[in-house]
């Protein structure tokens, strides 16, 4: 009898977990009858209690969990297989020392766990989403992060005021700050993250590398120290194996970096670098390291508790980056085989154990073309740090950071390589920029590096987040919940064998930035319309969309904070499914009021190289050597676009004749008439004939017929249409009375003008708008603040001379003169805040 009962309970538990996981969503599983649900309600507590007591049951439970996992993750991706045990006491109240998406993410899990939340916010964020979501909110200062989110005193006060028992630091800001961790410890407040000693160990590049070596983790072979002569350099290079990278240890960024492929180049590199080392830095030491060509950036998620247990939760492929920020991530990686995965995972775990790591963490690796992998660094938070956020912190206290980082040298390899890449691609964009505007504004971007804080800009530090939706998707674990449990001192619930790879998850980072400028220069503004693609019709219940965001319609994207809008995640049984869903999700994502990078994201995920998995950290500069230009239309796509624009125009025209209840409108039969329209796209005028019946338009372009049908809801931001039988979602970004239509089609927005044949034939008489003489006018290419103005009225500037520096989102952009001329007038001064397109300087 006992056995039967046990088996029954087992079954109910399967459904029960699915139910709990769905958070009260109507169960789609037909087999779950209401009766069973009733039974479950009474059975669940018993089972739970039993489960806690019986170790044997626990293993059964794990098995059960993974049975249900598949169903569960599929229904709503944000439901986790991990069952939150309400009786497992953690904290009563947690303060989240962060903002935006990550703060919201943490609050969501806290709510599930029945934990009260406290948000902190700056003045600018007073009505932000995380503030509204939290149970309590405390203002910690003005908009500047150094005065609010990095203001330890204010945050400590907030903790005291609200009586929070623990602090979740999120990522960036104070998440890696030892001082903060120490102050929390003094107040006996739990820091939800790794212990101070782990932060310390991993924060120091030399130490981390030594520890990694000791833990038998593959590290990049290299030498750091005084090299006497070229021959010694050649000897070292020979030991490491070509290609090698040589540079001055003290030099930061990509400065002075030489790549040598043979002995001769090594000698040359030695001469160059040692000279520079002595002259520029007064420090003779050189760094010679193996150069990894075409590396992939793959990181392993680890989870460790305070009892010496650690797990690896598979990898994330993060190779698609720009300026060291991840753009598209996926899990698992197409590149890793199970052996490599296990090897990387085991090394990651041994590293975590070696530093007595607890909480969730990320171990970053570079993987070369032979699937050799090298440890890059361990991020003591869950993921790599917010480089930009850190930077600001460093700028605030350059001295302290300098001391702390001291002579950082050993594994700065990746930093250099990638800075080099950044510079390269910025140069590329510079070219583009010049070409586009005919030598108007030469835009040079440079990473904002304060001389004294150079070491802080470490390109291997990636702005990132505490939790990783894609890892959560494929493993079914709620990482935030795990972190909270671990911080409270609970043991891990899982064994390594419990960690599955279920399906495939892709993450697109949606940013408020203009991808046409250096793959993304920040944009600011108010989100006048914002609609996440959450209510997509799922063809299969196993495919789903998750959006982690910290903003809503009406939110402001300001210059003070990270321009990330959301992490858009799609999940499917296979990579194809997830990618297909991602296309759909990107097409259905409505963002108005700020420029966004949806066009770039959508191009990446359909690019043949990405689809086939042939990617590296150089993907973007290689695929778009002249900068990103948006989607290039094929002839067929162009026809579709023209037809859609013509149909939309006609639908709007017809609607404007439909007056309700007005008897004085003469009814002109408009049906079945063939209209001739001229549609202008990229200066090409296309003549097309359009006729319609009901909601179906037939457009004839160059002898080809295109059928477009749809609802033609002119109020909706989305424009779902069927073009020649294929479903497409377009977005109408602009429609004016004078025939201008801007459509977002395949992610990219296209400007069209639809005119009647008469208007088009007359438009040749219209005077050409004289384009502004851009060579003598310097406008701000982005919103930001003026750091410095190098000229005054009456000065003579040479072509390419720096005129002023604009800083936006921690990036400094040097604005240079496009021609040699006298300065006519200066319209900005240091400290000014400027908008995109604002006039800065006029030349004569």
């Amino acid at each position, binding site marked *: 009898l006992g056995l039967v009962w046990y088996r029954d309970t087992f079954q109910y538990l399967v459904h029960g977990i699915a139910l709990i996981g769905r958070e009260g969503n109507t169960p789609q599983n037909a087999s779950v009858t209401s009766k069973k649900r009733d039974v479950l309600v009474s059975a669940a507590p018993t089972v739970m209690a039993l489960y806690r007591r019986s170790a044997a049951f626990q293993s059964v439970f794990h098995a059960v969990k993974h049975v249900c996992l598949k169903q569960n993750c599929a229904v709503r991706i944000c439901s986790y297989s991990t069952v939150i045990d309400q009786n497992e006491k953690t904290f009563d109240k947690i303060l989240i020392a962060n903002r935006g998406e990550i703060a919201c993410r943490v609050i969501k899990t806290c709510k599930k766990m029945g934990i009260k939340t406290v948000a902190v916010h700056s*003045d600018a964020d*007073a*009505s932000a989403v995380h503030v509204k979501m939290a149970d309590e909110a405390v203002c910690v200062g003005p908009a500047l992060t150094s005065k609010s989110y990095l203001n330890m005193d204010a945050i400590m006060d907030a903790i005291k005021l609200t009586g929070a028992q623990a602090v979740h630091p999120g990522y960036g800001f104070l998440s890696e700050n030892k001082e903060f961790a120490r102050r929390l410890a003094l107040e006996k407040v739990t820091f939800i993250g790794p212990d101070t000693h782990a932060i310390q160990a991993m924060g120091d590049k030399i130490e981390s590398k030594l520890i990694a070596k000791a833990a038998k983790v593959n590290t990049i072979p290299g030498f750091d120290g005084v090299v006497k002569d070229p021959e010694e350099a050649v000897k070292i290079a020979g030991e490491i194996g070509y290609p090698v990278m040589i540079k001055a240890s003290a030099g930061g960024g990509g400065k002075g970096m030489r790549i040598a492929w043979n002995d001769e180049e090594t000698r040359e590199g030695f001469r160059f670098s040692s000279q520079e080392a002595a002259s520029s830095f007064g420090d003779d030491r050189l760094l010679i390291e193996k150069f990894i060509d075409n590396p992939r950036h793959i990181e392993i998620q680890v989870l460790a508790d305070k009892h010496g247990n650690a797990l690896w939760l598979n990898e994330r492929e993060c190779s698609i980056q720009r300026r060291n920020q991840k753009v598209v991530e996926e899990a698992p990686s197409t590149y890793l085989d199970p052996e490599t995965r296990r090897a990387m995972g085991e090394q990651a775990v041994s590293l975590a154990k070696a530093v007595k790591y607890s909480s969730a963490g990320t171990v970053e690796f570079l993987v070369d073309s032979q699937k050799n992998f090298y440890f890059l660094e361990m991020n003591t938070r869950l993921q790599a740090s917010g480089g930009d956020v850190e930077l600001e912190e460093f700028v605030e206290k350059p001295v302290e950071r300098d001391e702390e980082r001291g002579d950082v040298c050993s594994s700065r390899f990746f930093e250099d390589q990638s800075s080099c890449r950044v510079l390269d691609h910025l140069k590329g964009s510079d070219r583009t920029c010049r070409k586009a505007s005919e030598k108007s504004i030469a835009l040079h971007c440079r990473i904002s590096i304060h001389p004294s804080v150079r070491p802080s800009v470490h390109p291997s530090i990636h702005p990132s987040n505490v939790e990783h939706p894609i890892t959560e998707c494929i493993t079914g674990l709620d990482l935030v919940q795990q972190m909270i449990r671990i911080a409270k001192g609970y043991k891990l619930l899982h064994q390594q064998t419990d960690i599955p790879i279920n399906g495939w998850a892709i993450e697109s980072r949606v940013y408020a930035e203009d991808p046409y400028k250096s793959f993304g220069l920040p944009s600011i503004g*108010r*989100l*006048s*319309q*914002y609609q996440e693609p959450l209510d997509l019709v799922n063809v299969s219940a196993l495919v789903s969309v998750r959006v982690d965001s910290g903003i*809503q*319609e*009406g*939110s402001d994207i300001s210059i003070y904070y990270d321009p990330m809008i959301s992490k858009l995640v799609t999940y499917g049984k296979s990579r194809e499914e997830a990618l297909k869903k991602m296309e759909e999700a990107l097409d259905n994502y409505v963002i108005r009021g700020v420029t966004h990078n949806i066009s770039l994201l959508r191009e990446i995920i359909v690019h043949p190289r990405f689809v086939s998995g042939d990617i590296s950290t150089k993907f973007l500069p290689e695929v778009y050597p002249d900068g990103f230009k948006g989607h290039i239309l094929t002839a067929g796509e162009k026809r579709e676009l023209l037809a859609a624009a013509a149909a939309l125009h006609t639908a709007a025209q017809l*609607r*404007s*004749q*439909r*007056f*309700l*209840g*007005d008897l*004085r*409108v*003469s*009814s*002109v039969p408009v049906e079945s008439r063939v209209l001739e329209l001229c549609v202008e796209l990229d200066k090409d005028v296309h003549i097309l004939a359009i006729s319609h019946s009901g909601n179906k338009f037939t457009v004839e372009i160059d002898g080809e017929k295109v059928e477009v049908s749809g609802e033609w*809801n*002119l*109020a*909706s931001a989305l424009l779902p249409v069927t073009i020649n039988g294929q479903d497409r979602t377009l977005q109408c970004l602009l429609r004016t*009375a*004078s*025939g201008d239509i801007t459509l977002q089609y395949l992610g990219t927005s296209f400007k069209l003008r639809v*005119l009647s044949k*008469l*208007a088009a034939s*007359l*438009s040749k*008489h*219209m*005077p*050409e*708008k*004289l384009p502004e003489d851009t060579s003598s006018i310097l406008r701000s290419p982005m919103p930001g603040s003026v750091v410095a103005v190098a000229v005054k009225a009456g000065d003579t500037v040479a072509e390419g001379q720096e005129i002023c520096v604009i800083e936006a989102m921690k990036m400094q952009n040097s604005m240079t003169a496009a021609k040699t001329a006298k300065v006519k007038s200066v319209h900005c001064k240091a400290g000014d805040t400027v908008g995109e397109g604002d006039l800065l300087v006029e030349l004569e």
Partner: protein
Amino acid sequence: MATYTLMRGTVGLLNGLKCSFKNVGQIPYGAVAQSKLLRGARCYSSSHLSVQERIEKKRAAALAGGGLQRITAQHKRGKLTARERVELLLDADSFVEFDMFVEHRCSDFGMEADHNKYPGDSVVTGQGRINGRLVYVFSQDFTVFGGSLSGAHAQKICKIMDQAMLVGAPVIGLNDSGGARIQEGVESLAGYADIFLRNVMASGVVPQISLIMGPCAGGAVYSPALTDFTFMVKATDADVLQDTSYLFITGPDVVKSVTNEDVTQEELGGAKTHTAVSGVAHRAFENDIDALLNLRDFFNFLPLSNKDPAPVIECHDPRDRLVPGLDTIVPFESTKAYDMLDIVQGIADEREFFEIMPNYAKNIVVGFARMNGRTVGIVGNQPKVASGCLDINSSVKGARFVRFCDAFNIPIITFVDVPGFLPGTAQEYGGIIRHGAKLLYAFAEATVPKITVITRKAYGGAYDVMSSKHLRGDVNYAWPTAEVAVMGAKGAVQIIFRGKENQAEAEAEYVEKFANPFPAAVRGFVDDIIQPSTTRKRICRDLEVLASKKQSNPWKKHANIPL
């Protein structure tokens, strides 16, 4: 350069004069006169053959306007011909032309000569449809005598205006005229006056719109000034870099001789001047095509006459749509600005807002939108500009717009965030009292449905002015951020507690007491305090209720607005 353009502008006139002088010179020679007579006789006899032929010939001449050469010149200036404009403005094949055969009656200076007669003279008139709705149109033809106004020209315009009044349909004038027909002298002036009179008579009966698409100078400017809306075209003339349309009483030359000011035609009366500085024009468009297509769009907002209701168009935007963005739009700091247009676009159907005078007195926003398909007039203080205070220009701008809406049955929705009237000598000397009174007068007088939403500040007299409950507001709402008080906390405390300590404490008390919607709400001066995101839903519902509102003011010959 100015002289050159002025000359070129009146090239038609000069040509006409030249021709007539040539004829005058020829009269003494008998032989010439005789041959002329013979030619006339020949014409007569040939035309006698077929009336039909003559009709066709005249029609063809009317359609050709001033001839190919002048049409080409017109096109070169980036301007369309009078007929092309009409064709673009109206629905295809809907134009019904009047008076194609009318010719001028001038006999001086040789104007009676055949080659100086153009069938239809220098204006095209008629009626047609815009999106199926009736409209009367006149379009001045610059290719005929520079579009100058003759007695016949005026008579044609008067005819369509009279009929527009009879049937109740708007009148659109496409102005492109060098001025009076000098050869006709006083007859031309009389023609202007006839038009002015009709403009005045039609005012408030049918909507009148002027689109200035070329020169409009001297007395001619008063016709557009009397109409409800004046739009301009700012297309830059490719040759001389100036706007194609301009309006002024006297041109740059006269200005120079009288006041010794150096000013270009464009600076004096171009689109930019009138839309941003003088407030004479309500909006400017890029070029002829852009202007005409926009005018079609604008026309859809207007009722046909004062007897017709505001039009209702098929609407795809849900009437009960919530606008979550509005809940966070008003900043916490009361000194921080936000964009009133965000609110307007947020609540309007399809985010569509046809702003009137977007570049003039920007501290007040006025324009047309639709709510659940029905045209509404929107007035809102703009906190982004001068804190949204009321000054002379914004009061006049608002008043004129409110009166238009009231005259044509268009409900008025007012968004209030006003810190008061702008202080200072410039304003006082300029007569802010008199001008501010206009806005007050307009709101008080209006009998159309009036809905008011106080989004933030409603201070002092400006609170009363902005369509308050006391001025017969039908529905007055306050957002939770509303502060209805005599003045801001700081100023109030300085007066109440003059010379006393603890100003800060007193200020806090004042804020607690007055810087919220309650003082107004407990007295019933606002009907409800609403969640901003529900504003659209509420207004749509109220408009439906108020659609049958009937209210009239006491009988009077006419009211006496403080002009």
